[in-house]
Every structure is written in structure tokens, then in C-alpha cells.
């Protein structure tokens, strides 16, 4: 390792005097290459043949444009260029290799790709040989003035639109369809030719990562964060608008809407779990069981022909009752166990989750009373029909656009996510939220400051359960079935992974984590079988490398990176007494 580092330093020293010229030449060359054909055959989608850049070439081109930093010295230049050039190089290299593979040989790789990879390499070497940045540069903001508020609001809207665009593009890249039960393993039955979609999605993902990293190193993300914080209402409104508008961008295609609605289900549950784990610091490993309670209740009382109870309650009442019942379960489980140590609580919730799964599996009339139909679950939940006669199961035409019926369920999910998010955000910044954080920080001091710690922990736990119940009842209507295999421990673990990946204690983090964790296996089909393996490894790596997650709450970030535990209640005790005997 050190030898490599030394060699790199020596090489860097050699190049350093010409770093700017070298990098600039590389980036300019790279821009030119993006207008040359990268492939000589038409089998590769993503517009690799003609001279208009598309797909991977467009991403490389955009990342190459950061080369202007070689001319203009902005704060964070070296690190921003480092990210942009590295990701450009990786995308170019991957694309070239893929074209060579898919086209069965290097002959099919166009001149643009060859020169592009070399140009990207020069770009990268130049960027990495620049002098170190001055890391003390402050967060910049717009100059004060009459138009500042307006400009900042526009920026917020643009941020929301950009997020929507990224989502639409990512979702728009088609997925490889595979037959059910087919064995999918890298290097197995699947030929690389089938991976064109995956390759496109991967390069898009890499592009997003590179772009975000480069921007964040230039301080743009921090400035934007400060701006959006000042205009949070504008951002929320713009975000909500973007989410509502999304179905109109899909040209009547229901598939993406179904995926988006599923992400919504997942995200709503993740945000709810984030209240319990992120704010109050209680590790709940059976969260999906509360979700399941809501889903099963909704499935049973909503007029499904497979339900043993022949009732059909109105939807609003179903949501309310599901939430209440799940909350009740939360209280029943939490009241006796919340005074236990945190790690015991984790085990108890896990046990509860397993009991729930076993129970719904058994209430099929043979191993127990007939209520849940055992492994088959309660299926055929009828489509929702609003009092005005608006059926969720039919396609509708809005503003002259034909919308598939999935849009109805998608909007339902948007409302659910909005409600859960609002609850989270408002609670976090309230007397209750402060008390939760105080308990997490130092339970004893919190008690001595007048906080009824048991009651507040129970409140967090029960509230999390309530939101999960509501989300579960909505999701039962979206997927039209409640079956035991949707409520296994692994589902709880995935939710937890979403919260941790995104960032504990932030709502954006939970949304991002849920989206990434849902979309990756959906779009990268070869990951399908390996996805749990990847999640497991991701959990370990995140705890090791970036425990605060992708979008950390400011507070959590400090918490995880402080040296030594100090008075932190979450930290392992510096001195402890135990014994073996």
C-alpha cells in the first residue's frame, strides 16, 4: 500500500508542474471524443453510433465539462475535479469494455471510445496532480439584494425539478425482464448481451454519484442545503409538485408508476422507522410486523372474497383502525420491554416480528383458527372506489393526458409519504423530538431534567407502530394482497438498511435510502439474487466507513465522528463491569 502511495506521490511530483495543462488537454479531448462514435455496430442501445452524444457518452461529456476548473480556480477545485474525472474515466472504461464484450471483440469499439478512455485518464491524472485545496473556505451564499429571495426560491424549485428528472431518467431506463424463478447469477445463465439495460443504468448511477460528489466538493451542495433550509416551504411545495406531476411524464406507461408506488410504500415505512431508530435511538428489528398488522387488518375488512369476514369498511376508516390497532400492538409490546437495555429491546422486537410471521402463517384453519389463509394470505382486495364513484382500478384522463390506473395508487402513496414526512419533520423540531434526542444522548440526564423517559420511549415506539400500521393498510390496497412472506425479518432488515444508508434521523435520507435500495435490484437484475448479500455487506461497510449515512443529520454526523465516547449515552461505556464465571 505504502509503496503504491509513494509511487503515486513521485509520479504526481513529476506531473505536477503541468497538471493544469495536462488535465485541461484531457478534458477538452474527452469532450471532443463524446461527439465521435463509440461503437461500430447498432446492437448497442444508448446512441453510441452517431455523433450526437447520448447515454453513457452524454454522462462522460457532462463530467468532462468540469474541466473548466483547470482554467478557473474555484474552492474545492482539486477534489471536485478528482471526483468528476475519476467517474468519467470509470464510465468510459466500463462502456468501452461492455461494447467490446457485447460486440464480441474490440473491433466493434469505435475510435471515440479508445481515445475517450485515454483522454479521461489524462483528465484524471491532471486533476489528481493539482495542489491540495484550501479546505477552510466558508460556505458561500448569494449576495444580499432585492432579488435574493426570489433567486433562492427558483433554485429550490430547480433542485426539485432536477431530482424529479434524475428519478424519471433512472426509472425510464428499461429493466431486463426475466422469467420467474430463473436462476440469475453473474456469469451464469445470463449472457452479457442481455445486460445492456444494466450497463446503461450503471453508467447513469455512476454519473449521478460523480456529479453529486463534484458539486458537493465545490461547496455547491452545502450552499444549496443552506438555501433550501431557509426556503424549506418552497422546497417542500416544489418537491410535492414534482412528485404529483410525475405520472404525466410517463406517457401512459403503468410500469414505472407501479415501481414508484412500491418505492412510496417502502419509503413511508422507512420514514416511520426513522422516528424510532433515528430520533429516539431505539433499535426496532420487528418493525415490519406493525406494518403487517395494518396490512392484514385492511385486507380482512375491505371486502376481499378470500377474507373470512364479509365486511367492507370505508377506506378512511380502515386506515384509521389499522393505525390504531398497530399502535396498540406497539404499546403492548413496548410497555413492558422499553425499560430494558437497548440491545435487549432489539431482540424483543425481533422475537415479536417472528411471532407475527409464524402466527399469520398458522391462522389458516388447520394449525389455528382460520383468519389469514396461512401462506396464501388474503388476496383479491378489490380496487378502491371513492364515494364520488371514482374507481382506482380504472384508467382516467386528466388534462387531456391518458393516465393508467396505477397513477391513482401512485398518488395515494404520495399522500401517504407526505403525511408521514410531515409528521416526522414536525416532531423532530418540537418539544417531543428534543426529548427523544435528549434520551438518546444521555438517558439519565434526560430523566433528571424532567423527562419521563419510559413514557417518551413508549411514545416513539407506539407512534412508529401507528405510522407503520397506516402505511401497511395503504400498501395492502396498492398490492391487493397481504401474505406472510412480505413480512419476514429480512423486510425489517431492509427497512433498517434504508434508514441507515440514507442517514439516521433525516427524512431525506430515509427517502433516498428507500429509493436506492428498491431501484438497484429492480434495475440491476443480476443483483436480484445477490441483493441481500449486497445489503448485508453494505450495512457492514456503512457502519465502518460512513455511519452517518448518505444524508446525515448534522447532529448524528457529529455523534459518530467524535473521538471517544464521553458522556454520550449511545457510546459503549468506557469503563464497565462484567464477569465470566
Amino acid at each position: 500500500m505504502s509503496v503504491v502511495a509513494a509511487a503515486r506521490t513521485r509520479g504526481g511530483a513529476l506531473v505536477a508542474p503541468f497538471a493544469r495543462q495536462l488535465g485541461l488537454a484531457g478534458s477538452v479531448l474527452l469532450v471532443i471524443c463524446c461527439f465521435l462514435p463509440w461503437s461500430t455496430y447498432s446492437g448497442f442501445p444508448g446512441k453510441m453510433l452517431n455523433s450526437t452524444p447520448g447515454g453513457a457518452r452524454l454522462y462522460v461529456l457532462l463530467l468532462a465539462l468540469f474541466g473548466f476548473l483547470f482554467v478557473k480556480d474555484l474552492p474545492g477545485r482539486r477534489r471536485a475535479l478528482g471526483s468528476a474525472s475519476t467517474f468519467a474515466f470509470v464510465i468510459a472504461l466500463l462502456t468501452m469494455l461492455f461494447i467490446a464484450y457485447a460486440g464480441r471483440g474490440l473491433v466493434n469499439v469505435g475510435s471515440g471510445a479508445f481515445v475517450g478512455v485515454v483522454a479521461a485518464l489524462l483528465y484524471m491524472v491532471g486533476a489528481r496532480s493539482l495542489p491540495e485545496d484550501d479546505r477552510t473556505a466558508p460556505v458561500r451564499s448569494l449576495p444580499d439584494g432585492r432579488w435574493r429571495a426570489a433567486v433562492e426560491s427558483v433554485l429550490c424549485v430547480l433542485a426539485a425539478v432536477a431530482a424529479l428528472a434524475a428519478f424519471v431518467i433512472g426509472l425510464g431506463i428499461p429493466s431486463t425482464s426475466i422469467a420467474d424463478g430463473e436462476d440469475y447469477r453473474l456469469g451464469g445463465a445470463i449472457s452479457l448481451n442481455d445486460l445492456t439495460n444494466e450497463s446503461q443504468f450503471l453508467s447513469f448511477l455512476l454519473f449521478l454519484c460523480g456529479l453529486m460528489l463534484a458539486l458537493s466538493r465545490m461547496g455547491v451542495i452545502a450552499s444549496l442545503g443552506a438555501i433550501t433550509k431557509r426556503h424549506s416551504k418552497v422546497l417542500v411545495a416544489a418537491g410535492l409538485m414534482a412528485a404529483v406531476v410525475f405520472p404525466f411524464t410517463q406517457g401512459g406507461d403503468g410500469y414505472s408508476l407501479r415501481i414508484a408506488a412500491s418505492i412510496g410504500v417502502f419509503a413511508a415505512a422507512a420514514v416511520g422507522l426513522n422516528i424510532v431508530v433515528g430520533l429516539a435511538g431505539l433499535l426496532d428489528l420487528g418493525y415490519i410486523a406493525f406494518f403487517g398488522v395494518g396490512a392484514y387488518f385492511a385486507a380482512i375488512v375491505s371486502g376481499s372474497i378470500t377474507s373470512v369476514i364479509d365486511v367492507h369498511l370505508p377506506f378512511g376508516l380502515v386506515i384509521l383502525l389499522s393505525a390504531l390497532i398497530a399502535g396498540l400492538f406497539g404499546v403492548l409490546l413496548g410497555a413492558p420491554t422499553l425499560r430494558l437495555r437497548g440491545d435487549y429491546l432489539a431482540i424483543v422486537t425481533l422475537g415479536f416480528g417472528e411471532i407475527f410471521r409464524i402466527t399469520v402463517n398458522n391462522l389458516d384453519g388447520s394449525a389455528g383458527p382460520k383468519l389469514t389463509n396461512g401462506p396464501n394470505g388474503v388476496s383479491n382486495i378489490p380496487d378502491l372506489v371513492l364515494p364520488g364513484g371514482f374507481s382506482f382500478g380504472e384508467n382516467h384522463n386528466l388534462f387531456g393526458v391518458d393516465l393508467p390506473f396505477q397513477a391513482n395508487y401512485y398518488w395515494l402513496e404520495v399522500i401517504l409519504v407526505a403525511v408521514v414526512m410531515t409528521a416526522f419533520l414536525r416532531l423532530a423540531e418540537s418539544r417531543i423530538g428534543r426529548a427523544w434526542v435528549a434520551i438518546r444522548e444521555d438517558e439519565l440526564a434526560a430523566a433528571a431534567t424532567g423527562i419521563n423517559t419510559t413514557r417518551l420511549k413508549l411514545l416513539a415506539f407506539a407512534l412508529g407502530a401507528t405510522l407503520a400500521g397506516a402505511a401497511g393498510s395503504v400498501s395492502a390496497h396498492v398490492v391487493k394482497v397481504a401474505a406472510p412472506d412480505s413480512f419476514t425479518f429480512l423486510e425489517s432488515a431492509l427497512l433498517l438498511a434504508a434508514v441507515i444508508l440514507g442517514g439516521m434521523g433525516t427524512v431525506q435520507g430515509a427517502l433516498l435510502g428507500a429509493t436506492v435500495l428498491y431501484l438497484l435490484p429492480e434495475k440491476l437484475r443480476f443483483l436480484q439474487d445477490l441483493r441481500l448479500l449486497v445489503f448485508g455487506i453494505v450495512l457492514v461497510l456503512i457502519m465502518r466507513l460512513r455511519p452517518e449515512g448518505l444524508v446525515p443529520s448534522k447532529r448524528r454526523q457529529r455523534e459518530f465522528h467524535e473521538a471517544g465516547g464521553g458522556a454520550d449515552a449511545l457510546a459503549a461505556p468506557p469503563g464497565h463491569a462484567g464477569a465470566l464465571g
Partner: protein
Amino acid sequence: MDLFLQQLVNGLVLGATYGLIALGYTMVYGIVQLINFAHGEIFMLGGFGALTTYLALPSGTPAGVALPLMLLGGMAVSVTVAVIMERFAYRPLRGAPRLAPLITALGVSIALQELIRNFYPRAKSARNFPQLVNPDRRFSLGGDVSISAPNLLTIVVAVIGMVALSTFVRRSRTGRAMQATAQDPDTARLMGIDTDRIIVTAFVLGAALAAVAGLAQGLRFGQVDFRMGFITGIKAFTAAVLGGIGNISGAVLGGFTLGLVEVMATQYAPEPFAGGAWKDAWAFVVLIVVLVFRPTGLLGERVAARA
């Protein structure tokens, strides 16, 4: 009456497995206060390690030769994975917020299961395990009560393992150093004990015993499954808590108690909650009840409350 006695025997056999695994949880928890979620997977890997060893042996190897080799093979796999896990997943997190190691343990557990499922040949569902000890051979214990050969072997091996461990911890230098580290790691370090080495020792011993349980499991059921570590692991943790976590005799006692409770509940619970479909549920009910009413376990836990 015979039925009851027979179930008693079955419960003890089941409990022996739980006890063996529970020892690993209790030692690690006693020393570093970590619930090593992935310990159940170490047990599962022990079973697969033993199977791999068997497959590598020339066919026709007599059981008397194959079994010890399989045990060694299983132990080698379990111990290696446990040491790697400690070194690269847990050790860097010492002193991190308490949630971090727990989440890491969860990740390791999922990853190990998936590694076996995806990359061990034909392991996507249960894999057959050689029936080297004939399960149809039964030893009568009086009346209609009997015990099958693999079950008898399980009990015998488990008791040997438990006695060996307890002797080691009480008599050997390293064992005493383990006790000292559990009492007070800082002072132990000042006294010249290499606490890192002690922690690794705890992981190694726990993994070795779990491998014993893994081999026994394979012999008893004639199959190993990548999923078998998860539920059994949680139950073994229940056993450790039941006995009083951090307490070595407690883990053994808790294991046997839980085994008995599970078998008896499956047999005698009021209909419709009896029968195999509910047996795991009963184990978890025991877990919750114990934690609620006696979180310090039967023998009292040896981990003082951390203020």
C-alpha cells in the same frame, strides 16, 4: 408418562444444541457487551464445513475416521470466519455508538447466509448431510423411552464441550485472563493482559463449540440449510439471556431449559397452539416473558448495569 419422559429426552437433546451455541453468545457478551447476531451463522457454517470435509474424503471412509475429521473441518471454517469477522467488522467499531456494532452484526449475519445460498453448490434449499450415525439405531432408556444414536452423540459431545470450556475458563491462564477482562477491561490491560487477544479467544472458543452444534445438527436431521443459523441463533441467544447473560453455567442451564420448554409446549400447549407449526413462536414467547419478568436470567447475569 412414557410420552412425557420421551419428550424430556428430546428436550434435553434440543437444549444441548442451544446450550452449545449460547456459550458463544454469552462469552462474547460477557467480555465486549456485543450481541453477536452472526453467531448463529457461525453454527450454520460449522455444519457446512463438516459437510465439505465429508465430500472431500474418499468415499467409503469409515465413520470413525470421517466424524472427527468432519468436526475439525467444521471447526476450522467456523473459527476462521469468526476471527475474520471480529478483526474486520467488530474491532474497528469499539467505542462507536452502541447501535453500530449491532447493525454490523446484522449485516454480517445476512451476508454469511447469502454467501452460502449463492455460492455453495446446490445450497439454495436444504442440502443432504451424510447419515453417518444411523438414526434408526435407538438405545432404550427403560419402558418405551429411547434415544436415537445421533441424539445420544449430540448430548455426549455437548456435555464434553461444556465441561471442557468451563475447565478452561476456570483453570487455564487464558481463561482467568478472560474473566479478568470481563470484570474490568481497563484494569486487565494495565495488568498486562492483551485484551484484543482475549476477545479473539472468546470468539474462537464460541465458534468451535458452535461448529460442534452444527455437525450435531447435520447428523440429527440429515441435512444442513443456509437458513438454519438464524432462528437457532436467536433461540440460543434466548437461552443465554434465560440463564443470565455473561454467565457460562447460565448459558448451559438456559439452553436445556429452553429446549425443554420448546418441546413441552409443542406437545402440551392448548390446541390449536400445539404442534410443530408453533414451536418457534413458543421459543420467542419465552424470550419476551423472560426479558420482561427476569431480564437478569435464572442464575443472574454477570454484567453489572452500566450507568
